[in-house]
């Protein structure tokens, strides 16, 4: 589970449900040539929660830069948006 083996990220979007969240996030990802591999969407702890697995191997920007874009633009929409390398979750939750 080394970071060299994959270039997948986990995008999480938390906030109040509103029209166009998925359109906005997937638009941003497409703009940067990031491929969406899977999407799940639930209401958890009274929050709209969307989790996406994305592949950054074709991405035109670094994950860190994409994180800044998603965070700042998300904030403007009242959403908390993160993107983190999947290794964070693999390491933390899988033995």
């Amino acid at each position, binding site marked *: 589970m*080394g*970071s*060299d083996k994959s270039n*997948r990220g*986990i995008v*999480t979007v*938390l906030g109040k449900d509103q029209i166009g969240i998925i359109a906005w996030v997937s638009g941003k990802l497409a703009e940067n040539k990031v491929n969406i*591999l*899977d999407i*799940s969407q*639930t209401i*958890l*702890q009274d929050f709209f*929660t969307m*989790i996406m*697995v994305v*592949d950054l191997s074709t991405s035109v920007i*670094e*994950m*860190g*830069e994409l*994180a*800044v874009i998603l965070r700042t633009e998300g904030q403007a929409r009242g959403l*908390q948006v*993160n*993107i*983190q*390398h999947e*290794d*964070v*979750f693999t*390491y*933390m*939750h899988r*033995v």
Partner: protein
Amino acid sequence: MTITFAPEEILQTIEMVRNENLDIRTITMGISLLDCTDQDLKRMERKIYDKITQSAANLVKVGNNLEARYGIPIINKRISVTPVAIVAAHLDQDGMVRIAKTLDAAAREVGVNFLGGFSALVQKGLTNGDKALMRAIPQALAETETVCSSVNIGSTKAGINMDAVADMGGIILESARLTAVKDGIAAAKLVVFCNAPEDNPFMAGAFHGVGEPERVLNVGVSGPGVVAHVVKNNPEANFGELANLIKRTAFKITRMGELMGRAASAELGVPFGIVDLSLAPTPAVGDSVAEILEFMGLERAGTHGTTAALALLNDAVKKGGAMASSHVGGLSGAFIPVSEDAGMIRAVEEGALTLDKLEAMTCVCSVGLDMIALPGDVTPETISAIIADEAAIGMINKKTTAVRVIPAIGKKAGDRVEFGGLLGGAPVIEVHPFSSTQFVRRGGRIPAPITSLSN
């Protein structure tokens, strides 16, 4: 490709970072300076400067990149070097100060906030280099910003060098005096150890041991806030259940350290050393070890039961952490630095936590009497006696103990000192008024202890 994590797991990770102050406290690059020795001081300064700036040129950049990629803050990027008393054993006091300034310049050039290793290992006795370095400590720390110093004055195998202990009382006091206008901050960069580890990534006691490779990358994790959250949410759990919950949390925290350490090591081309399994508090609210003890059911940290609570916490952190990492080392345990822990500060201010109780707590946790402000009129002999007590605990219990106390020049018990940043601020704590002078001045060494007959 499907999502292989439960949403709860993903949200838990995000919650830990956002609300519970989960972070990597430090990635510390150890750099050997053994090949920088030179009879010509100017050439030696150049060699040291070049080696550090070349080795750590990308340390801060790589740290920042990892932080962005993984979304886990890395608070500090630091450097530790071979104990300067070994590398510069031929220099005099002034030469040692010049080396400290060289280290400071190199640290600033690469952008790290602390560099450790202005150190000497004198548990058995002093070389000429050790003597020169120890004399140089006050000026070196007062005239540099990033340089940290440590002196190992005892070990389980060697006993306690009481001559060095006697010297250190005066050296700590002098360091504080030279920086009295900044509340004695030089003393906050100086640690006195018993059983000092050679791979500790945490300041101010980090140095690159002589058994270490050319370069190495060590990681110190943190996360008192995450543990506090778990303890708080389980008020009914019995001790077995509580220990289990803490273990599981420590595992998760430590895994982040392991991940970051491995990634940084790969990107920098420097071997990965160890993860230091520590609960390192910060002055931020909600990032306190004292708070964990209070959530366990103590009205204030320092009251009866505190040592037991800390013992459980410390052991559970180690058990959980040890499984999460391939190599564990450094100090590994819960830290109880007073000025860096909002809960400890409150406990001292309210009279719940005293120096004597802190000493008792260090018997069951890492690492010692840490960041404690003493009255300005404290005598060097009293400081030495405090060091001797703490070293005795380390020597007998085969563990690392340390003393980092800051005499608050011109202040008395109950006043406050402010160091700023991660070092925080603290109320001045009372010391015993009775003298230890005659004891400290006996000189010689306390013999190494017998290790059987273990009561």
